[in-house]
């Protein structure tokens, strides 16, 4: 096979993207643990680690640009690199949302929760599963798995609606709940945004494999 060096560089790119995906997945796991346990130290750790995510995004972007400039990729190679650039943008945004959750934890972590968290943990389980599936779909070029993200995203949207309704009820019942309630709604929103970003990952994976443009976030 020709262009062994080029193929190695493409494989290396995919490995780096997976590395970034794993790092971001870890950030979600940590930020959600910090929220559940009201662990302020852990929340701060998530905030600090975001620098690693940002640095990896820049590194991978440069790898992509170098590949385009030096190798003149065509067809699937070109789609792989184009999708790669978009994937790292969504991963970086997911990382930012994990930080947003951590910052919110710092704000409300000093006081007891107004209600036990039920739907928010459900959302986090589904969202983490979605990211795990997206990374798997990326590695295996599994279009079906990428497409299945749409359904899970609908469930996250539904739970988000439920959180808003529940929290609003608590806020109406007692104005003292307003501050914490607002923050809980923000956290639910961040999780909902993470799920949306993961559907974007799915769309880019489908484009990479088949050149088809599909909307998974309807």
């Amino acid at each position, binding site marked *: *096979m*020709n*262009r062994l060096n*080029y193929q190695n560089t493409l494989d290396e790119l995919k490995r780096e993207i997976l590395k970034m995906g794993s790092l971001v997945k870890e950030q979600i796991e940590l930020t959600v643990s910090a929220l559940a346990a009201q662990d302020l130290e852990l929340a701060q750790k998530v905030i600090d680690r975001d620098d690693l995510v940002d640095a990896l995004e820049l590194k991978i972007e440069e790898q992509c640009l170098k590949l385009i400039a030096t190798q*003149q*990729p*065509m*067809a*699937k*190679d*070109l*789609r792989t690199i184009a999708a790669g650039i978009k994937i790292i943008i969504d991963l970086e945004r997911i990382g930012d949302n994990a930080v947003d959750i951590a910052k919110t934890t710092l704000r409300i972590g000093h006081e007891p929760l107004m209600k036990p968290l039920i739907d928010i943990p459900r959302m986090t389980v589904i969202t983490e599963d979605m990211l795990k599936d997206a990374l798997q779909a990326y590695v295996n070029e599994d279009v079906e798995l990428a497409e299945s993200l749409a359904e899970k995203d609908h469930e996250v949207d539904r739970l988000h609606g439920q959180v808003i309704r529940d929290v609003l009820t608590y806020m109406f019942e007692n104005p003292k709940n307003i501050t914490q309630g607002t923050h809980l709604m923000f956290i639910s929103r961040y999780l909902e945004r993470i799920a949306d970003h993961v559907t974007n990952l799915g769309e880019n994976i489908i484009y990479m494999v088949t*050149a088809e443009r599909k909307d998974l976030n309807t």
Partner: protein
Amino acid sequence: MTENKNTKVSAENLSLWYGPFQALKDIHICIKEKEITALIGPSGCGKSTFLRTLNRMNDLIPSVKTEGSLLIDNQDVNSPDIDVVALRKKVGMVFQSPNPFPMSIFDNVAYGPKIHGIRNKDELSHIVIKSLKKAALWDEVKGQLNKSALSLSGGQQQRLCIARVLAVEPEILLMDEPTSALDPISTLRIEELLQELKNQFTIVIVTHNMQQAARVSHVTGFFLTGELIEYDLTENIFTKPRNKKTEDYITGRFG
């Protein structure tokens, strides 16, 4: 595909042999008028052979045998009624290495019209100037038309060869790797020239340069061992080819 344009060239079941060796295998292709069609493929795949069938340059090679049909403007190119000289006037050719005649710039361009019977000096002058302008060479050589063509740079010589072809008012331009012997800037200038010429002529270009094919052409055909593997809009060939062989070739996995 390009629905609104007429078919200029159509081949059906076109096969060609050099002695026992089959260089073209059952080619079906439909080339539209006033468009640039690129032919790509590894060395020896038959793309230049196919190009040469369009103006019967293969006739000059002994032991060539052709089967199937090749129509230009619905006329069979291989019919015994065809005037081959008239065909080669209608279907001009530019080659990889610029090949100006060892004479002046003026005489190079006037040569073709003279052969076809134009003797009037004013008319010849008019044709030479018009052709040099069309080939984007006029500004660089006006006032020096008596200079030897061999004193021009590579890029200029190639544009002179294009002017020479244009002087006999062809309808189809065949270009066999027209820029592979030129520097990058001359290459880009000729590509720009092709964009202007395509409004008037049907252009078929054989190229090894994938990026060039992607830049200049509307439709691309991929040849491999004498077969036309895939033929589609250039943007499809280079972003989502249907055949794995096409994908492997354009991504450089072989060839």
